[in-house]
């Protein structure tokens, strides 16, 4: 009884905040992740606990996203700092704009979870309710941004200095600092969509379809089990362990093999990886988005198209990471137009890229750097970003087919991810490791989008 009352109060008004003990009632639950493994709210880990408290105070709730990230407190720290800064810190854009941009960006990937969160935030910031009716009710200035949101979500390589120029000219134009801020929010939320779908995060309890926890009844788990069985043989634990063994073996080989591939081979390998990703069928047919989301979407048919298949190969060359890198140009430009953001993002990228616990499933003391680098570069590869100094043969060597197709689906068509995909990739790895992969997906995707858009900004400025 008390509980029921409690929840109604909570849903209706956020002013009454439960004390810390009752916070544990926010139990994360997901059909994809076994909830018993999720970091509990009253975790013993001091650091994680403090971060949760911080997140709770920032958002007036402990979002499921944050709780999932609780596996990796080091990353969570920089993530929270950045998100707090771009949404609520000092910046050129008004608060309601920030949340509305977040809504528009999330709508591109039909991520109702993020849309609903930011609808509430938008209203709390004093945003106009009519805007929430859809894109027809918002100021022209915000509408102008839509083109960029659309392109960045699916084919960031199409963004050019003309897009920036269009924004900064004419009536209700954008200042460069505002564009910068908007671009970062857009990239952030596109990447977040991938994470939300990739980890299968459920709506918050006060949202439609949201629930706090679901008892893991035996029948339910059996269901899961049988469904994955029917999909692809029997993923017994020995099977999974063998998979990890094989991967570690391959990583070892990689360090030992002395023979160097020729340059031509390297280039061919990049193209091979690029075109191979074509063959990975990415999920089923597109889901038709709900009407509640559709009102924030224009041109819904515009979607990811494989970089290797782009029409004008001549006009859009491969993006060379050596010619425009985040560390050099990207950071400097971002920091120049929107102070401190460069440092925060730099920190976040580095944490995500370098995060490791030297484990792989049950094995410890593993140097995972080559595996992590392969994932990172594979994501960049799908967006046509090429690292000259990387041997793309390693991608095929280290990433098995399921993992590749999972990575591709989550990155490019996050809305099509299913539980099967989640179960099938990286068998035998712990949930926390799968979340780790998703974090890298998030950051690599964000960096790719930012690299393209910052390059467009630089070209516009010169």
């Amino acid at each position, binding site marked *: 009884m008390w509980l029921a009352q409690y929840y109604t109060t909570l849903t209706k008004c956020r002013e009454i*905040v439960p004390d810390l003990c009752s916070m544990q009632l926010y139990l994360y639950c997901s059909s994809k992740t076994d909830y018993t493994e999720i970091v509990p709210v009253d975790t013993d880990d001091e650091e994680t606990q403090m971060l949760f408290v911080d997140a709770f*105070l920032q958002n007036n709730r402990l979002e499921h996203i944050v709780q999932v990230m609780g596996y990796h407190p080091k990353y969570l720290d920089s993530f929270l700092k950045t998100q707090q800064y771009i949404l609520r810190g000092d910046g050129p854009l008004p608060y309601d704009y920030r949340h509305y941009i977040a809504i528009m960006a999330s709508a591109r990937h039909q991520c109702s979870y993020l849309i609903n969160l930011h609808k509430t935030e938008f209203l709390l910031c004093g945003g106009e309710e009519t805007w929430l009716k859809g894109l027809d009710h918002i100021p022209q200035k915000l509408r102008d941004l839509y083109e960029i949101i659309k392109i960045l979500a699916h084919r960031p390589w199409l963004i050019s200095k003309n897009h920036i120029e269009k924004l900064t000219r004419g009536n209700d134009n954008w200042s460069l600092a505002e564009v910068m801020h908007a671009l970062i929010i857009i990239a952030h939320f596109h990447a977040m969509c991938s994470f939300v779908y990739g980890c299968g995060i459920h709506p918050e309890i006060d949202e439609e379809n949201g629930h706090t926890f679901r008892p893991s009844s035996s029948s339910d788990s059996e269901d899961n089990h049988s469904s994955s069985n029917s999909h692809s043989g029997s993923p017994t634990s020995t099977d999974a362990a063998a998979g990890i063994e094989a991967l570690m073996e391959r990583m070892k080989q990689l360090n030992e093999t002395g023979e160097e591939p*020729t340059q031509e081979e*390297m280039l061919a390998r990049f193209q091979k990886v690029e075109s191979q990703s074509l063959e990975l069928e990415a999920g089923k047919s597109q889901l038709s988005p709900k009407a509640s989301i559709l009102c924030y979407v224009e041109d819904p048919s515009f979607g990811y198209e494989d970089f290797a298949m782009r029409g004008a190969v001549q006009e859009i060359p491969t993006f060379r990471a050596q010619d425009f890198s985040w560390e050099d140009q990207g950071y*400097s430009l971002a920091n120049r137009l929107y102070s401190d953001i460069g440092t925060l993002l730099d920190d976040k990228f580095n944490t995500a890229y370098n995060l490791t616990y030297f484990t792989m499933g049950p094995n410890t003391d593993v140097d995972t750097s080559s595996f992590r680098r392969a994932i990172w570069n594979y994501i960049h590869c799908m967006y046509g970003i090429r690292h000259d*100094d990387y041997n793309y043969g390693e991608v095929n060597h280290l990433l098995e087919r399921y993992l590749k197709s999972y990575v591709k689906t989550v990155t490019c068509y996050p809305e099509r991810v299913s539980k099967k995909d989640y179960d099938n990739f990286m068998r035998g790895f712990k949930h926390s490791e799968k979340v780790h992969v998703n974090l890298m997906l998030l950051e690599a995707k964000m960096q790719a989008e930012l690299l393209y858009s910052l390059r467009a900004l630089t070209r516009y400025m010169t």
Partner: protein
Amino acid sequence: MHTVIEAPINAISTNKDASQVVVAGRNVFRVFSIEDDAFVERCNLRVGKNLNLNFSAADVTWNPVEDHLLASAATNGAVVTWNLNKPSRSKQELVFNEHKRTVNRVCFHSTEANLLLSGSQDGFMKLFDLRKKEVNCTFSGQSESVRDVQFCPHHYFQFAAAYENGNLQLWDLRRPDKWEKMFTAHSGPAFTLDWHPDDKNWIASAGRDRSIKIWEISHKPRLLHTVQTIASVARVKWRPSRKYHISSCSLLVDHNVNVWDIRRPYIPFASFEEHRDVVTGIMWKNDPYVFLSGSKDCTVYQHMFKDAVRPADRANPIGIDTNVNGDLGLAFSDKLLVAGKSQTGSSMLPHFFRSKGPDRSEQFTMASSSAVIFESVDKSTGLEWFIECATRYQLSGKSVEDLCDHNAAVAGSLNKHQVAQTWRILKLLYGGNTATPCPPRTVSVIGSPAVGEAHKAESEKVNLKQQLDGHLVQDHNRSTHTDGENKDTGDTSTAVSEDESDAESSLSLTNIASGQVNQQGDFFFGDGELETFDYPVTMANMDSMQDWTLPTEAIPLRHEIQDRLDSPDPLQNATDSPSSANESEFSSQAFGNAENATPMYNLQAIPFASQNPPWEFSHLVCDMLEYFAEQGDVQTSVSVLIILGNKMKTPVEDQKQEQWFMAYLELLTRFRLWGIANEVIKLSSHRAVASLNQQSTTVHTNCNKCFKPLTRAGWLCDRCKALTSTCSICHLPVKGLFAWCQGCSHGGHLEHLREWLMTHKHCPTGCGHICEYT
């Protein structure tokens, strides 16, 4: 001279005698010989059947000993050497695939032709021996990416490396296991470093933190100089045979090559603006006057030092500021003194310096400047009137008429008659709905600012002329002038005279200002002033009637003088304060001019006005507000704006309004009139201003148990790990208003307590206290 190449350039390098230059980029690799007036291509290294990444260079270097040897760092991590003497078409000689990541820099030993050092993203530096065709030695940077390596030109065994984490390391070739010295040079990556060509203990580094730093490394590394740039620095290179000069180029945004004198870190000594995109390489041609630069805009330039732009010459050599006490600080370059001596026309200044020959001299390092600080003579006068007005003005709550009346009285009591008069006029104009368009009497008054202005422009011009001639005329009795004024019209015309005399007094004040300086034996300042006064003269000629805004330089001076005079506000009415005129010999001269003009304008103004009964006045009110603001009296402008609200038909520009509001608010806060500042914010109809007091409104409270400030949230204490204030009825935290009884200090949600007290007398906690709430 320059040449255009088909692709962006990543790096350039010259050979030993700087007669040839190699240009390298992702899609270009060529050698040019430098002729007298052109670059002539000597060979193209990017040839062959398959042009792989080994032909795309991130960096290139020419062997300083052997003229036919080149080395390049490919983006894929290969180090490639090239032999120009090779008979075949392809000059590629050796390829080292030792590094796992991009190689950022290659560097030949300065005397040993066969030693080549490379630094890579993978955190290793490798020393190649070209005779053995293998790696001699590997230096580990502990997995930090190496951004630059350079052999020391003075020590055979020493080299330095710059890292992505901002560290600089010094290494000895004989000790490959550990660095000799290490220190943190930059926050964020260090992109480049360069050894000083002459001083063997100096090293320069630069990085993403937008600074170039010069280090002294003989014992403990010591920071000697820091140059702040506007963008991340991509490369630095010392200028040969100039101890203190260093050239730099930026990673983005800034396309110039800047040459700095490290002793003057704020403004480049010389800059070269030819490139249209960021510069990626600088090479001096063994000659301090010539250098080459390559850029992403696909061009290579040879720059002569005499073509440089000197940013220092374009900088304004005078700075001026006042503090709250009314003291005036003035700094000016001594160059102006020199200029004033030799050239009468200030416009000749740049030319004068040009002719001296910028190459030979480093004259700017000799530059010194003087700072003069004028203190206000009479501090007691202060700005009390401002505080008085601020506190006593009423801005809302009554009809416009009443407010104007009240404020007029306030202004009047403080001897600010002009302002008082303004309030009265406003009352006439805007008070009452039936306000019949003004009688001619008023018209003439309103017309006065324009009259005063034209007049002012006139007298100013004359003034300046006289000043230029250096003859200071001193006669004209002032009394006749005032008599004439008073006789002219009734009380309304006082406004006319006020405005005029206002202009006059302000002019005379500027005169005083320069006079004052002269008295301090600094007559060159007077000459310097001439330069600034050039502008007002022409302006006054061009648009005498409409645009009477004074150039901004003049304004601070005027402020200063306000305080020096005896009367607290010399602007208010010069006729009432003879002391100010008597005090200064110059003012009489101004009045003299004024007198000539006044009758004429008055005569004109009145008939003109009376012919236009349906009279649109709001733009004049606008002008008037602007006038006050220009005079530095934003108080009046803002107060009027607030009271009139949207009654004004032609509103003042949004931006201007905001400026005034901000200025007024700043003043108010300076005087700690927080309450009034808040009232102004609240009453403001300007959107940006009105939202001011909705920002950063946080005040941290302390925990009621441990007294630690609650920084994270007002209802949760980090130390006690407990909620600070819970409602004694519902036991939930109170986030908003906390109502409590002062007798027993129990309390809770206001609503809850109200409900409780309807039915109970005692405290809800059961402490037994009979609570009293008022």
